[in-house]
Each structure stands twice: as C-alpha cells, then as structure tokens.
C-alpha cells in the first residue's frame, strides 16, 4: 500500500500510450494509485504540454479531463504525467492589470507575474460562522438597481439576460460607477470570460481602459474559439485570485463572470461523454452543487477587510427564466437582475424587468443611516404600484383603454413615467441615491395619496408631491 511520500515518488513516472480518447477525456490504464482530482500533464507527440485533472480513479483505470482539448493526440504516443497534487495557480497582487487564459497563464505577452503563493483552484467551503453578513450599500448610480434592487457589498447578484440585450453595457457601467459612499478603499475587478466572442472581451477591455481602471483589473479569457473544456476551470482560477485579493490583501473585489450559460454547457458536454445520468434538459444532476461552488465563494468574512461581490452574467436560452441555468442560479444567488426584451425594444436602458428582479440583501442595507429613511417603503410602494400597472395593462389589452376607470388611467400614466423617468437612463449617467429616490417620489406623486398603502403618513407629509 503506497503512502503519500511513496506516491509522490511514483508521480515522477511517465505513462506512454493511453487506452482511449473521447472528446476532452483520456482513459489511462495500469497506473500507480492516482488521487482523485490530481493535476496531470499530457505531452503530445510534438512535446507540447497540456494540463488536465483526474475525474475518476480506480485500481485499473484513470479518467482524465484535458483542459486544452485532445485535438492531435494519438493513443500510442501520448504521454501522461501525474503530479501528485491538485490543480493550483500562483496568485499575487501583481496579476492586476494583466490578461490570462483560463488556466492562469499570461497571454498578453508579458512575463509570468511574481507569485506569492500557490492556491488550489477548487477553493474550500467558507465556514458559515466565519461569514460576515453583508450590509454595505454600493451605489451603482443606476436608479433601478440602487432604488429597487440594491446591490450590497459581498452580494452575488446575477444579470439574467438574453442574446442581443445590453448586459455587457450594464456590467461595464456598474464596474465603472460602483462606489461605497464616504469610503476610499482599494478595489479590484476580476473578469472571467467563458466562451464569449472576442469582441465582447475587447468591449470590456476598452471600457476599463477608458475609465482608467485597467491597472486594477485582472482578466481571465477563455473565448469562444478556445477549447470548451477550459471554461470549466476559468471561473475557478478567477475566483481563486479574487479570494486572495479580498481575504489576504484586504481589497474589495468585484467579480464579473460571463457567460455562465456557456460554462454550464461545457459541464453538460463532459457529463454526457462520461455517460452520467442526466436530469433536466440533459444537464447533470450536480449542476446545482457545481454552480454553488462558484457563487458561494463571494461574500465577506469576519475580521477581514476585503470582500468579493460577484456579478455573473447569463443568457437565458430562448429568454426562458425556468431553463435550468437561470433557475438553479436563482436558487443560489442573492437575487437577480432580469432583463426584458420587450422593454429593450421600446428603447429603455437598462431594460430591467421591474417585478421578477430582486435583491435579497437589500433589506438590511437600505434605510436610515444607510441610504435614506424613506427608501424601504418607497421601494415597496413602487413595486406594488408597478405590479398593478401590469395588471391594468393586461386588462386594457382585452377590454381596451377606453373602458378603464379614471384611477386605472392614472396608473397607466404612472407606469409610463416610471419606465421612462425612473428606470431609463443614459449609459454614462450616474445618479446619486438621493436623485434616484427623488425621481421615485416624483413619479409616485402622480398617484393619489390614499392609494399609497405601504407608505406612512409622515413620509407622505415629507416627500409626497415635493
């Protein structure tokens, strides 16, 4: 029975020839005992090295997943080396301002950054008792977010979007404008691109450049042209750096991951090749746990100054929010910003659907001393009134607007003003929270005061119609 020391010696061995290659998976037989999730190196006939990890290990066969794909490999000439340790990346603050591939190797032509320490990319579960409950309000300058779906430092708030909708613009705008009021702290952006087009990556680089923050951004790019399997490791590499920056270097990190749907599709691809039993739409049964391993890495920790706020972007296939990817994400993340194609069609930016969007951490981060005392009730009333607007619109589409009661007409006017004045804003417009709330009151004042059941009389006295 080989012990750990013995195994490390065995890891110097190299196996020439493999049993089977299927998609990104390689099957190797008759090896020494190989550890689960061990890092491997795979050398092709030209001496080029690709990396991979062990997915399954048994006494007679090892299944290996190769990140850079298996194109060009042959059965007899492929050589495999097992490292005896899990996949790690070297992390340091110097990685900011640089561009890497999904495995953390620089692709901007510069030298590898000096490394402080090696970390396992899989990370470890944060002890729930070590977490600090997030409550610091982040001002994004975007009314529909600040006013109604407030982003909190340490939150994971995804954007549920669709193809062709301006999710990248919104993410870039948030990255540019996000600030904690009254505090100057070191911040960083970690950007992970999974299977997105080259021009999307370029859009973000340019946007960071223009706002002069590029030196505070680390980019991990696994683009559409790269092997799909690399996408599985890209968010993990990015989050490992983010954890280092947040919890070892005391920085406030914003992680943008796009597009989570591509990530999930790669996961499905591997699962299918391995012959696993699928659950919904062919996605593996562990999709929820796998996504949770990524999303749950954000947060705040007691006694540490830094934080990880994450903003995953996912495109809903066919705009279907009940598709497994948005559905399972919504069960893990702390709310969601949902885009609506119909609003985009009417030229409203950001096209954030009022009702399905939600920020779960909002309740503890707004109100007196944080934003303004009227914020909670105002937001609640806006939601209620807008919900009624939707009902009235449905009614109007059946019976015609003429048949509506005068009150319902007032609601329709309110709905229009809400969308055009409160939700809609320019892509470079930054509103303070006070401006946002004042606009909220302005549109709400179109409704009669006795319709506002969720607002106290004092608040009506102070803000209504002002």
């Amino acid at each position: 029975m080989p012990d750990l020391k013995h195994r490390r010696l065995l890891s110097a061995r190299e196996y020439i020839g493999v049993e089977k290659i299927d998609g990104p998976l390689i099957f190797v037989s008759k090896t020494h005992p190989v550890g689960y999730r061990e890092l491997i190196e795979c050398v092709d006939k030209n001496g080029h090295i690709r990396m991979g990890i062990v997915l399954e290990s048994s006494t007679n066969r090892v299944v290996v997943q190769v990140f850079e794909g298996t194109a060009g490999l042959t059965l007899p000439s492929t050589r495999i080396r097992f490292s005896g340790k899990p996949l790690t990346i070297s992390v340091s603050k110097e990685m900011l301002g640089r561009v890497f591939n999904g495995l953390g190797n620089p692709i901007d032509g510069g030298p590898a950054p000096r490394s402080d320490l090696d970390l396992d990319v899989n990370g470890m579960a944060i002890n729930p008792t070590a977490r600090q409950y997030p409550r610091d309000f982040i001002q994004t300058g975007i009314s529909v977010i600040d006013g109604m779906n407030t982003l909190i430092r340490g939150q994971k708030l995804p954007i549920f979007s669709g193809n062709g909708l301006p999710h990248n613009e919104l993410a870039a705008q948030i990255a540019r404008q996000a600030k904690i009021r009254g505090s100057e702290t070191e911040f960083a952006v970690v950007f992970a691109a999974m299977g997105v087009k080259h021009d999307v990556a370029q859009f973000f680089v340019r946007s960071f450049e223009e706002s002069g923050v590029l030196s505070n951004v680390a980019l991990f790019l696994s683009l559409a042209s790269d092997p799909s399997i690399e996408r599985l490791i890209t968010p993990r590499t990015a989050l490992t750096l983010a954890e280092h920056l947040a919890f070892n270097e005391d920085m406030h990190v914003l992680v943008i991951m796009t597009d989570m749907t591509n990530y999930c599709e790669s996961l499905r691809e591997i699962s299918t090749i391995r012959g696993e039993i699928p659950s919904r739409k062919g996605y593996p049964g562990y999709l929820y746990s796998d996504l949770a391993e990524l999303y749950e890495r954000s947060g705040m920790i007691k006694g540490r100054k830094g934080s990880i706020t994450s903003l995953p972007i996912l495109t809903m296939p066919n705009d279907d929010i009940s598709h497994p990817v948005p559905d399972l994400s919504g069960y893990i993340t702390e709310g969601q910003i949902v885009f609506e194609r119909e609003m985009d069609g009417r030229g409203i930016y950001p096209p954030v659907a009022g009702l399905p969007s939600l920020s779960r951490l909002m309740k503890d981060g707004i109100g007196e001393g944080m934003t303004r005392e009227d914020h909670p009730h105002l937001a609640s009333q806006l939601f209620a009134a807008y919900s009624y607007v939707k009902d009235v619109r449905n009614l109007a589409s059946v019976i015609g607007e003429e048949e509506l009661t005068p009150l319902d007409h007032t609601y329709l006017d309110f709905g229009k003003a809400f969308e055009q004045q409160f939700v809609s804003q320019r892509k470079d417009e930054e509103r303070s929270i006070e401006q946002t709330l004042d606009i909220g009151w302005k549109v709400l004042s179109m409704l009669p005061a006795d319709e506002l059941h969720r607002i106290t009389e004092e608040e009506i006295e102070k803000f209504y119609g002002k």
Partner: protein
Amino acid sequence: MSDRIIGQVRRVNGPVIEVMGITDAEMFELVRVGEQRLIGELIKLESGGAVIQVYEDTTGIAPYDPVYGAGMQLSVELGPGMIGTIYDGIQRPLEAIREMSDIYINRGITIPSLNREKKWHFVPAVKTGDRVSEGSVLGAVQETENFKHKILVPPKDAGILESVVPEGDYTVEDVIAVLQTENGQSKNLTLMHRWPIRVQRPTARRLPLDTPLITGQRVIDTLFPVARGGTVAIPGGFGTGKTMTQQAVAKWCDADIIVYIGCGERGNEITDVLAEFPALIDPRSGRSLMERTILIANTSNMPVSAREASIYTGITMAEYFRDQGYHVAVMADSTSRWAEALRELSGRMEEMPAEEGFPAYLPTKVAEFYERAGSMEALNGQTGSVTIIGAVSPPGGDFSEPVTQHTKRFIRCFWALDRHLANARHYPAISWLDSYSEYLNDIAVWWEQQVGAAWLDDRTEIMDLLQREVRLQQVVKLVGPDALPDTQRFIIEVCTLFKNAFLQQNAYDKIDMFSVVPKQARMLHIIVEYWKRGRDVIKAGATLVELRKMKVYQDIIKMKFSVPNDDLSDLDKIEARLGRSMDQLEALHA
C-alpha cells in the same frame, strides 16, 4: 477513533468510493478514508466489497488508500450543550471548527459534538435502588435560563440503578449513574448518549393532533393552520420567500425548541440567522431566540453527501427533545436539495433512475422523513411533539415535478408560494387558492375555546369570498370592472381589503411581525363585519363610493400596524366606529 482497517479503496468517483477487501463491516457503519481520515458512511455491502459515501471533499484519495471502521453507525451525540449551537450536517460544531481551521472548513477534522470540558449542574431525580425503564428521567440540567434539559435513560436500556451521583457539576462524559440491566450487566450512564441518525427514536404511542402550532403569521394561523406534530410543505420558485416564511415561523412560533436545518442553501442565510436570532427576544420567555434554537448548516457549497445526512441529524435531535416532553419545530430548508443530493449519490452509484433522474426510492425516503413527525407520548409518559416544516424548491416553480408531488403525498398542510404575489411584494406570498390544511377541523375546537365560536364562521365566510372573488376577477378581465353591480364589486373590494389589511404581513415591522391569537381573530371579525354590514347597506341603496369614504376604512387598513399585541383595546374602538358608520349610512338610505 479505532484503527481497525476494514478495506482498501478500489475506485473514487466524487463523494462515492468503492471499497475492496471488506472483511468485517456493518451496514451504515461510520468509516474514515485515507490518511486524511475523511468521514464517511458505509451505504452498500456486497461480497468482499462495499460502497461508501464520504462527507468531505475526496480530492487526493487514491486506490489502495486504507478505509478505517469506527464500529458504530453514524450517530449524533445527545446531551446538554446543543442549544444555541451551529452544527454542520454530521453534527460537527462549526464554531469549534473555525477555531481549528480558520475561515475555511479543512478536511478530516474530528471534533466532539458536545463540549467535553464544560461542566453542567446536574440535579438527580432518582436514587440508588430505583427501577428505571427506557427513557426514564434521571434528573435535569438547567441548560439556559429558561430551558431545563432532562437527562434520560437511553432507549433500549432498563433495570435497577446501582448508584447515582449527588447533585453537582459534571461533564457530559462523567458517569452520573450506574445501571444494572435486566441481564445483570452494569452499564455507566452519562449526561449524553448517542443515537444513530437513520433510526427513529421509539415512543409509547401517537396522540391525536388537536393543538395548533401558533406561528403569529395571520395567513397561516387563520387560513391554513398547522397542528403541533403536523407536517407542512412550503413549495415555491426562487424569490417567492420560502426562507423568509421559514425564518418568520422559526422566530415567532410557540414551540419550545427550533431545529433549523439549512440544507444546501446559501451561506449568508445562515449568517443572517446567526446575526439576527441572538438579538431577537422570544415574546413568551423574554429571552433571546437563540436560546431555543439549534442550527444545522450544510450550505450549498459544502459536501453534498453531508447534505443528505443533515436532514436526519436534525430530526434525531428533535426527537430527543420531544422525548423530554417538549414541543419541537423542525425547519428543513430545503428538502429539494436533500432529494438532489440523493439523486447525485444515486447517479454516482450507477443506479437505475426513475423520474427526472431521481432514484426510485425517493418517495420511500420522503415518507420515512415526514413520518418521524408527530405528537407522541414518550416512553417515560411525557407528551411532546415534532412538527416538520419542509421547504420545497421546484425547478422552474413547477409543482408537478417529482419532489413536490411525492412530498404532497406525505404531508397534510400545504403552503403554496405564489410567484405573482411575490412579484407584487405581497409577503408572505402564500396563495389562498392553492394552499390547504387538513388540520383545520382537528384544531377548530381549540380556536373556539380561545376566541369564541364565531371564529370558524368568520373564516369560512372569508374563504368563500376569496373563492368568489376569483370568479369575479375573471369576469372583470373580460368586460372591465364597471360592468359588475356594486354588490359584486364590493366583494372584490372586501377581498382587496382583506389581502392588504390582513394577509400581508411585514416581517420587519415591530408590531406587525407577529400577531397574537386574539388579535388575529378580532381583525378577521372586523373585516367580516365590514363585509356583512356593507353588503346590507348596499342592498339598501348605498353606493361603493360612500362606503369607501368612511374614515374607519383607513383605520381598518392600518390596524395591523397600529394595534399592539399586548393591548387590543383599539380594536374595540375600531369595531364600535365601524358599527356607528354603518348605522349612519343605513339611516341615510332607510
């Protein structure tokens, strides 16, 4: 922990490990794998081999690694020190783990579930020579200011006490009594004992469920009440407020002990409970809510197999407190994650799947879990109960999926969360159309004793109105509200009032966050009175506009916020004012 090697690893596939060379091992035995000593449980035995599910990340485990057997089943430690503690899915205290491994949970940590050093003040209730039987009370420890932890003879032990220690301070491992069992052996009894999590603790008999578990949430207590010892499912898509409802019930329900199982959910939700509960005061005891709460946290990023076990860990603890004669409420959030853990493990064991990849034994497992609820007479004659409130997270919010469907077969109370209500920020978003409670008739007697016989009639009246409103709304959708006569529009009006003034409840408002039983009954009665009197004056010729203009209307809308739980006299005033306003209106049209 024993070093008995029971086999070697043959194959590693995530949390599932196949073992070869098994000599002696028992089913569901607690095992440790590899040099890291990862904790696992033996779940399948075959000739010479076995399958183990490991409760920690198996990175680095390789074939031929040794597997050690502990010689006992996966068990929980039951004794003083559990209250106010936060455990992981296999009862390891997370606070203590944090002291050992900082912010992350390292692997292979072995740590006792109950503090071994802490001394508890034990007051014996028995003396040497007494005959005790299974579950007899040996004495008690005052665990918190308000909670008396009774020390029990473990089930399956009985006989004559050879010795009992005097009153004093003891650790959970100190011998407090020596028992001579029926077959003549001496057995040491301590403040704690172990119990395997997958085995239901024995009781004398089941009792009828005739007392409600009061939650302080009006839509629950008044419309869809749950009995002590009952079973509830809360299904709802993401963002509909499952966790908010569970937390509201955990905060304000009148159980003695809350076991809150965070099963595969968000880390920050557990942190929220940890931050909030100690600061909240239990209105009945006047003490911190944390002093009656046990948390089990196995968040979504913690190992999936421990998620499977966490449900059983929680329910076993609940049964232990029930045996002491307490009423326990178990919050399981979410049972879908538990079912998904079953599915993942089943898939890795290459079992034949049934619906949507779930194993064929899913309904059996769901039934076993919910059947552990009940109002019981314990072996020692005490009565206690375990109520299970399980959240269900159906994919896409579709209630026809297997977990919701199978759960529905084994529960008797269903609080369906509605996406439309949640979108309008109507909380709790419990649908009055899809929800039901089979306990209503069993507990109606209790309500009548508490608040008078009108309660059941009022409730029936309002439920009837809500049903009629749905049909009227369909008409409105086709022809507009103006086409309806005032009598019918008034029904819609009353239902809107009932939804705003009664069903909606603000979990963050100091007064509204919970309502005592008399307040709920009085509020309901006022709204039903408004309906009955209003209906009559409309028949007499009054218009809706006149009704709406009554000042008392605003009082009714605001009464949930304005009338404190400990002084309901303002409700009398509102009711009197309502009567006077209606009288005036009636006189006007007489």
